[in-house]
């Protein structure tokens, strides 16, 4: 099966998916000196995303996990075209996002809303909560001045904030409250897709739990599709039905979350799970994974995980691993496909 065949075969829901991302690639070029360009040195190319495909259905939360530099946020930004991807396609309800004109992309962005990690910098400090929440709707012409306060009232209720905060500015609010305002602002445009980029990572545990419950409610209550980006596996385990594990600009394993987390078939997923500290588990005597993520300027040949992998074979250094469907909807991009269970590893041939 080729990587191109894969994009179509994960349509788990009925009908067409809400969002289809296919073979998305994004490179960043860095400046070189005049001298280097005269001597024909190539411009250094940072591979941020390299052939990422995924689908998102209505009423579904897809989790994206990976270390920093794995391309999670770039994926999010490419989907709404905050970065112009270099390759690939993004279909939102069948509409091509990447070739959409200015008017069309405005409409699409209205229906796909991003929520960011840091509610301290993502809100304008000069706007009151009321102004912040109603601004997007006003810009898109969804409400007029008279409808504004009703809208704000309704949205504050939806994100469980008292209506008294409407006239405060962000500095008077706590981190959790600010993130609720950011969510209310995103909801004001009746989006169909929410992309939450590390939206709970900056929050304390007790507040994080409140926010995760809120995201869960919203997804169920409004029938939203959500892409939830986080580096904390426990958060993803809790909130997402399907998960994609990213490493160095690629998805290395994807599938239903319980399936991937309980029966991982990629060494990287297994290492992430083993490295995750929990109250129940004992700390491993040796680190789950040695070394660090390679530079995105110099992606290793073959499987890009081969510099840190314990199960490498010869072909891991020469061939890119193809996706293999190890169980329905569960794909792993690994030549070796070891089976892991509670720390015991059995190697499977083929």
């Amino acid at each position, binding site marked *: 099966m080729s990587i191109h065949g894969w994009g179509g075969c994960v349509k788990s829901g009925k009908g067409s998916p809400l969002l289809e991302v296919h073979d998305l690639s994004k490179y960043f070029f860095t400046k070189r000196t005049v001298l280097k360009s005269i001597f024909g040195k190539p411009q250094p190319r940072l591979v941020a995303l390299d052939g990422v495909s995924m689908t998102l259905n209505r009423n579904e939360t897809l989790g994206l996990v990976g270390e920093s530099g794995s391309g999670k946020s770039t994926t999010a930004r490419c989907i709404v075209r905050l970065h112009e991807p270099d390759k690939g396609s993004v279909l939102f309800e069948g509409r091509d996002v990447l070739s959409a004109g200015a008017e069309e992309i405005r409409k699409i962005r209205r229906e796909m809303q991003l929520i960011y990690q840091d509610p301290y910098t993502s809100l304008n400090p000069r706007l009151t909560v009321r102004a912040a929440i109603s601004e997007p709707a006003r810009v898109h012409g969804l409400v007029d001045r008279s409808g504004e306060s009703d809208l704000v009232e309704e949205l504050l209720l939806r994100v469980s904030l008292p209506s008294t905060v409407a006239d405060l500015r962000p500095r008077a609010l706590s981190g959790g409250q600010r993130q609720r305002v950011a969510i209310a602002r995103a909801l004001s445009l009746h989006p169909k897709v929410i992309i939450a980029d590390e939206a709970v990572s900056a929050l304390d545990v007790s507040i994080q739990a409140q926010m995760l419950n809120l995201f869960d409610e919203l997804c169920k209550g409004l029938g939203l599709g959500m892409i939830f980006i986080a580096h904390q596996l426990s958060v993803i385990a809790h909130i997402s039905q399907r998960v994609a594990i990213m490493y160095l600009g690629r998805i290395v394993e994807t599938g239903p979350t319980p399936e991937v987390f309980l029966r991982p078939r990629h060494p990287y997923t297994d290492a992430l799970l083993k490295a995750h500290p929990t109250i129940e588990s004992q700390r*491993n005597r040796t680190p789950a994974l040695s070394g660090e993520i390679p530079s995105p300027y110099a992606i290793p040949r073959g499987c890009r995980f081969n510099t840190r992998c314990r199960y490498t074979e010869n072909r891991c250094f020469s061939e890119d691993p193809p996706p293999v469907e190890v169980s329905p909807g569960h794909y792993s991009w690994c030549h070796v496909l070891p089976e892991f269970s509670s720390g015991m590893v059995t190697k499977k041939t083929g």
Partner: protein
Amino acid sequence: MMKQSMSGESPLLKVDDLTVGFADRRGFLLAANRVSFSVPKDHTLGVVGESGCGKSVTLRSLLGLVPYPGEVIAGSIMWMGRDLRTLSKKELERIRGKDISMIFQDPTSCLNPVFSVGDQITEMLRMKLHMSRQKAFNRAVELLDRVGIPSPKQRLADYPHQLSGGMRQRVMIAIAIASQPKLLLADEPTTALDVTIQDQILSLLAEIREETGMSMILVSHDVGVVAQNADEVAVMYAGWLVERGAAREVLHGPRHPYTQGLLNAIPKIDQVGQRNPLVPIQGQPPNLANLPQGCPFQPRCPFVNERCYSVSMELDRQEREHGSTCPFMDGEGA
């Protein structure tokens, strides 16, 4: 080789009623309130709590590093029989970085960007241990090798910006253990790192502790990190130490409603796919400048009763046992 025997059974560090206050024109607040704990030799104390609970301030106050306008206003910090609070600056300087070292959350801002890694390690060795230049250089190579930095000799010439976050933290650890300290204060040492790198750093610290019998105070907001690395856990809330005891006991049978709430609020990776709603702690953490009456957790507590307004906030158990400031929780175990 670094193991040194302690005189008698007294703990290395014994902190009693440590109180840290911050005052400015707008008012006065207590960032740490009558905090007491002790750290014996070869022992790791984990301090958990959310932002603003006073865990970092408590840690910094031990070495007199509370940022202005903060000040230790009461209590004693007994280090091997001497009260660190009464020492002169010079005397404290001799202990700081030598007997007690510290590592911080953000290695980027703790390393000096204009000096090479080698300069920064050897500076420590020459100043605190009075080594010669050559000896310090050799020792620095050893140290970098010890903390798992590949080709250490070459790396000594590198500047901090040439290293990754994980490598910088390793350098920080190398500097901290250079003088073979008896106690390492670790303030969120892995919070800025990825989970696989965090795993590597924590394994490294465990190895070093095993080799040298160094004690550690590990401050973290991540209960999982503390659970896996600490012998004893102290839970802080709004400047108060609300529960303290052996790690297993505190985390598996919490005796303070806040600890219980904190543990319930954490999503559990082994409950993947069950999609039960989490049980958050209701409300917001209190404003330290305007604490509620009595128990600071009382406005968010599910077990609140009228006696909570006048509770004494004393840990109810003796030294080393599992104690909680909440007298009303027994039998309610999580």
